[in-house]
């Protein structure tokens, strides 16, 4: 004890020691509470899908109830779910593919080449996001009816791409600007053409960025409701399809939530697949 005092190092007081011991537990508690807060809607969705209608709309929310599979059986038996799912998949994948196909090369050119109007062009792309999408809905509708794009997968893909493209271009532009120029110059000196340098060097290195943008685009298109509702009729995507369960008289909560759970799974799968890609891509890093 006297040693410690001489050295100016006092043992921590009792209260500090308790505080230090508790600190990691408090941190953990806070994280758990936050996780609970985030996951509660999912939990509610899952339990709701296993409830009878009376339990679902019970005035006092029921945490304990007799689970039933009827909602899932009904939904799967009607087969509609598969149609929604199929439509959404076609539209979301189509939108992702088209957005990346158009957006990534555009972003690369904007990031790497100096030409007259470069900055103006980039800004012009961004202006497409400066009006609320609703404002463009009616023009879209008119054009689609006249051109025959109404109620087609292609029509929805084009509409969704029109909305996502600017984000894809701007996110990827930033990503390409961060890549050292030396990479492409090294490729050129190795004997590559500009296009080979882009495809064989820049694209693979930019993969984490592309994966992130792909996830964003896919999720946007998968969740998009308004355009999908207005610009199509028989082709119903997941959000539009779910809306069917909301009737004039009643909301069929059981089937609605059961469908939602079924359709949530592929999205989770998609994100997990790309997330691994994302992490793999990030660890490639190290240029210097």
């Amino acid at each position, binding site marked *: 004890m006297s040693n410690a005092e001489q050295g100016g190092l006092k043992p921590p007081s009792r209260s500090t020691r308790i505080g230090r011991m508790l600190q990691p537990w408090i941190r953990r508690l806070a994280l758990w509470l936050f996780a609970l807060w985030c996951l509660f809607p999912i939990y509610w969705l899952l339990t709701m899908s296993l409830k009878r209608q009376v339990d679902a709309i019970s005035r006092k929310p029921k945490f304990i109830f007799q689970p039933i599979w009827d909602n899932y059986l009904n939904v799967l038996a009607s087969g509609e779910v598969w149609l929604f799912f199929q439509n959404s998949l076609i539209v979301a994948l189509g939108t992702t593919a088209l957005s990346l196909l158009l957006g990534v090369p555009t972003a690369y050119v904007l990031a790497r080449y100096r030409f007259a109007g470069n900055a103006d062009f980039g800004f012009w792309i961004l202006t497409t996001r400066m009006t609320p999408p609703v404002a463009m809905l009616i023009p879209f509708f008119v054009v689609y009816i006249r051109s025959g794009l109404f109620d087609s997968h292609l029509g929805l893909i084009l509409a969704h791409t029109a909305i996502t493209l600017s984000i894809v271009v701007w996110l990827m532009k930033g990503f390409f600007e961060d890549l050292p120029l*030396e*990479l492409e*110059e090294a490729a*050129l*000196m*190795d*004997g590559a053409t500009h296009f080979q340098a882009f495809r064989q060097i820049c694209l693979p290195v930019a993969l984490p960025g592309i994966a992130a943008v792909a996830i964003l685009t896919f999720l946007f298109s998968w969740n998009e409701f308004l355009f999908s509702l207005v610009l199509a009729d028989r082709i119903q995507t997941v959000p539009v399809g779910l809306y069917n369960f909301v009737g004039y008289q009643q909301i069929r909560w059981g089937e609605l939530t059961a469908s939602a759970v079924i359709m949530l799974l592929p999205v989770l799968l998609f994100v997990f697949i790309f997330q691994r890609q994302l992490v793999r891509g990030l660890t490639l*890093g190290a240029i*210097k």
Partner: protein
Amino acid sequence: MAEIQLRNIEKRWGQFTAVRDLSLTVENREFIVLLGPSGCGKTTTMRMIAGLEPVTSGDIFIDGTRVNDMPARDRDIAMVFQNYGLYPHMTVREHIAYPLRLRKVPEPELGNRISAAADKVHLQDFLDRRPRALSGGQRQRVALARAIVRTPNLFLMDEPLSNLDAILRVSMRAELKHLHRELGTTTVYVTHDQIEAMTMATRVVVMNNGAVEQIGAPEDIYGDPENLFVATFIGSPPINQIRGRLAGGVFQASQASLGGFAKDISGDAVLGVRPDNVSIADRDADLKGTVFAVEYTGSDLLIVVEVGSERVTLVGDMSKRPRIDQAIGLKIDRRRAFFFDAKTHARMRAAL
């Protein structure tokens, strides 16, 4: 193998001139070093040779062919970049194979050439690693292997050693020199490090402010500088400068008057003499001063002497270490002293 000719090349960006009227012929098998402080245009010159930067005016010839408008990939030049320019997603093997694949070298031949190149730079054991898992020196070697594997006409190296630590730099220097002897490929090497330039070059091009100050063998650059810039830029510790006036073979400085120089040059001048060519003299001293500092470097003893308002450094004798503030006399080797015009900084040469 190639000979490069630069004829009056210039590079301008708007009002700024990066390279001014530069002419240079690099002979086949030469190891040319472009040396100068940062921003002197040496890297820009190299990039113009590479084809990464278009020339504003002038012509570049490789083996007699004008290449001004030829894209980089057709010039058959390999380049080692300052930060190596390695591809993060490729293994060492893929790096070395890449230039060959682009040239459609048949796959069976690839293996041999990759291992031959990897052998030369001691990378055999690292072929399956990615750059992330390599040390700085190993990354440097990958860049080298990628450059030598396709036996190009010409090597360009842009400060390739500047990211390595001091010890590694010395050993890589020797390896690069050895590699050049072995391959005999014409090489243009950019650096701001005079030791690299002196040790590796067959000829050094000293550049400043976008223009060439002197082109010559390392011995000439050091022993026979064309102007004050070259004299001060080369040599460590730097050359001593004493201002004064030269007339009739006598150099009149503020503190002393030194005779015994050539009689046919005169005017306001700067006397330049390297620390190795100043010695301590007890009698007949040219300059008298007091010892300001004594620096022991290991191999040398540097003595800094204050002569009036100027300081003169000399390489002293290890066994005779002077005290600080001790009065001391200095003798200057007349044959190794240079005069530079005080205004133009050009060398003033006596007629022989």
